[in-house]
């Protein structure tokens, strides 16, 4: 099994994850990696101009269900594009500004499949996987709302014809 799906409190190394994908086999001609970080400012819903200074984010998930959903998203990507291997790592617990929060890496023979699949994986992960973010900013706590732009991005993939 060349795919890796992991939900963990620990940080990850971009270099190590890139090497894993690169070294899977000599068929690999392209590796696309994406890394999501915690921002230091967050706008509250409906008030895009009032930004709050973030102390930390708390990531909660549904153990057991999240892994199943991520496996399913990876399987969908592999059914849609010709991929050699996929890595999805998502962190949980308390994360400070600039911390790494999510990693998606895709290895394929040609670059287009890797670029497209990485975008698909992130769009689906944002709207389908059972994670919830609580923001602690300027001393007060608030659960973040889902963004409609994320749902729109994920919905786009079901409209697109197979490419």
């Amino acid at each position, binding site marked *: 099994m060349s795919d890796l799906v992991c939900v963990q409190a620990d940080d990850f190394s971009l270099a190590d994850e890139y090497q894993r994908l690169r070294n899977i086999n000599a068929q690999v001609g392209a590796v696309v990696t994406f890394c*999501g970080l915690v921002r230091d400012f967050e706008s509250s819903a409906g008030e895009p101009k009032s930004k709050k200074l973030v102390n930390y984010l708390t*990531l*909660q*998930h*549904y153990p*057991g*269900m999240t892994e*199943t959903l991520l496996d399913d998203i990876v399987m969908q990507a592999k059914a849609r594009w010709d991929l050699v291997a996929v890595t999805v790592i*998502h962190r949980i617990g308390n994360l400070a500004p600039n911390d790494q*929060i*999510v990693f998606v890496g895709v290895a394929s023979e040609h670059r287009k499949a890797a670029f497209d699949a990485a975008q698909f994986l*992130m769009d689906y*992960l*944002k*709207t*389908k*996987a*059972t*994670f*919830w*973010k*609580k923001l602690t900013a300027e001393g007060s706590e608030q*659960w*973040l*709302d*889902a*963004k409609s732009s*994320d749902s729109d991005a994920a919905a786009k993939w079901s409209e697109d014809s197979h490419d």
Partner: protein
Amino acid sequence: MINLLFFGRLGDLAKDAPTCIASLESDATPLGIRQMMKADHPELSKALSEPQVLVSVNKMIVKWDQPLFEGDELAFLPPVTGG
């Protein structure tokens, strides 16, 4: 007995809510359990009634009228915000 799980903002509202239901009626459903909470946990019940809230049984998303059985794990899921 069935176990109840509340995630995200629902977890904060469910701090005083039961974590399990000991004796299950034969026609129990997630909807029935949500309605049952109305009396003692009105704020939670209202939040559970929001259209974006999904419900899962044994880690699979189901409809609100899904029949529940002994040993089930019932979870209430607000809109996800990962990534």
